[in-house]
């Protein structure tokens, strides 16, 4: 098999943008069945299809690029570990989003209480060789605005407005009462509106 790292470099689709392309693509159910049979290519396609969503959910909740990478990666690793027990009749994307969101919330909570090692003497290494990315385009302002929200509010807002889930779907994914979802959503959006008022009018 070709190096997947190369093929991964292809553009990762944003959720909701590639519906027409998806028509011609094998369904998640088909890919999961193939991956369970041992077809790594199927797993790779599944990964490519859902990486972007998992990463962005984690990024917007943790507001930390390295943590987002770790969280999204762990979500996929956890999914792979339970591939054989996965019910193919259930949708894959909400399951993965739930794992990523919950892990990201845990990470964000832990950051607040964790006593971390001081490492001022040593610089942080580049993530991969010299490919230190340039300053991102517009994400930093958005991430800064999300700081005004609790991790739980961020998760609900992200699932609603990034992944386009309904409040009912969010409640099911996060195992929360629907009223809790609605209240977190409203409070989170109010806080975001205050932070982004000038920018978004």
């Amino acid at each position, binding site marked *: 098999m070709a190096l997947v790292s190369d093929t991964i470099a292809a553009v990762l689709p944003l959720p*909701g943008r590639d519906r027409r392309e998806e028509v011609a693509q094998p369904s998640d159910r088909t890919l999961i069945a193939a991956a369970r049979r041992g077809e790594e290519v199927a797993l*790779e396609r599944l990964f490519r299809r859902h990486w972007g969503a998992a990463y962005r959910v984690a990024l917007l909740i943790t507001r930390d690029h390295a943590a*987002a990478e*770790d969280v999204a990666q762990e979500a996929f*690793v956890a999914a792979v570990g339970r591939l054989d027990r996965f019910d193919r009749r259930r949708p894959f994307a909400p399951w993965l989003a739930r794992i990523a969101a919950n892990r990201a919330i845990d990470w964000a909570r832990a950051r607040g209480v964790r006593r971390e090692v001081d*490492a001022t003497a040593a610089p942080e290494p580049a993530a991969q060789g010299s490919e230190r990315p*340039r300053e991102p385009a517009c994400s930093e302002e958005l991430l800064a605005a999300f700081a005004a929200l609790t991790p739980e509010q961020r998760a609900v807002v992200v699932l609603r*407005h990034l992944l386009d889930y309904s409040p009912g779907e969010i409640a099911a994914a996060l195992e*929360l009462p629907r009223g809790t979802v609605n209240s977190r959503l409203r409070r989170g959006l109010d806080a975001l509106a205050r932070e982004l008022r000038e920018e978004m*009018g």
Partner: protein
Amino acid sequence: MSVRRDRFDAALADRLHRLDDEREQAAAARAWTAVRAAYDARDPLAAGRAAGGDAHRDAAAWAGTDGAAGGGARGRGRRGASARRGARRARRWGVALLVALGGAALALGPAGAKVGDWIGRTFDPPAGRALPADGRLLVSDPTGAWIVQRDLSARWLGAWSTASWSPRGLFVLATRRDLLAALDPRGQVRWTLSRPHVSHAIWSRGDGYRVAYRSRRQLRVVAGDGSGDRALAARTAAVTPAWRPGPAHDHVLAYATPRGGVVVRDVDAVASWEGPTPRPAGWLPSGAPAPALAVPVRRGKPVRAIAWAGRDRLLVLRRDRLDLLALDGRRLATARPPWPGFLGGNLAVGPDGRVAAFVAFDRVRGASELRTVRLDPPPSRRAGGASGIDRPVRLRARMRFAGPGGFGEVAISPDGRWAGVWWPAGDRWVFARTTGPRRVTAVGRVSRRLDPGTRARASVAGSPVGVSGWMP
């Protein structure tokens, strides 16, 4: 008001969808390595179940997924409990059935060859042989990492370059190129961390709340759950750091510098630690915010291995000698080899700190030796407490086993009575008594038993196969 909210919601959604982060794709490439590793390391029994049909799928559906979600305090759901019980029952029956079918298929002939591929990854125990002491060995070979039980049955953990035990043997720390991973003893990946050129990973003793590892030349520390990854030192030698034994909350680490020095630091301290004595002139500058100790640099004598001999003493194996050092840097004792061209190899200290074993290579003869050193009781165990550290210490290295070629990593049994080492030229694990009269036992044809497909590679080329640890 409502219109304004709707407009804001729409604008926010649009902005989230346009969120463009180029790090996302680089992260995807790195993450795929970890995901593929987890996929490769999947339990073959599980894969067999999945491929063999979905007889128990309904019972197991969604079972255990909450655990993977890491949801912490969020609802785990009572609905999963009965499904999990059902899944466990189904799994037990499935495993028993598959093992029985696999054994029958192998016995019946070539038709079972495919099944035999993964059954063959289970160690074939030689009749009447066993490890000389209780416990489980963690070993590495060219195919990856294995856990070997006392009866020599083994489980393949996956294609990992190195592996080491967690403090109580509940998990295994594994590395592979740009990946650090924590596995359970079945090989299931619990967490991973992608960093460039990961090596020399080791779990803290006591509570296991810290993990130290090298990424390129940098020494880094991460919490035992994979969080809070931080750099500790910018340039270190290619030596596995050593955690100090002691109370659960003690997170003191010793590591080697490229110029032959040894630094001891409390990784949780932030510029508040005062060393036991002021740093003498000419000592290695720590350059770190919280140095506890700096051992003098010995030029041209690089450190090969470090191990703690109790809480107050360090064993440092260099190219030309083995030093026992006090925490303030004084050399308490030294053992030198009787031949020139000595190269220090691996080093291990027994659980009670009373015995150490190390591997030495004689370049002139092209042979290796497994030697053991008996250490006097640590000062805290003597009458007089810390003053005992001033007493002279004898350090006499006794040769326990010698053989042509190099030896792999060395480990000491949980009871401290046996040292085990991989001897590639003999394709054996050799076990030697650490104290008393010399006594040696061995398990042969190791590479053939671990993986028939790599027999030639392992035995001829002397691949870096080693005994990474021995755990109760």
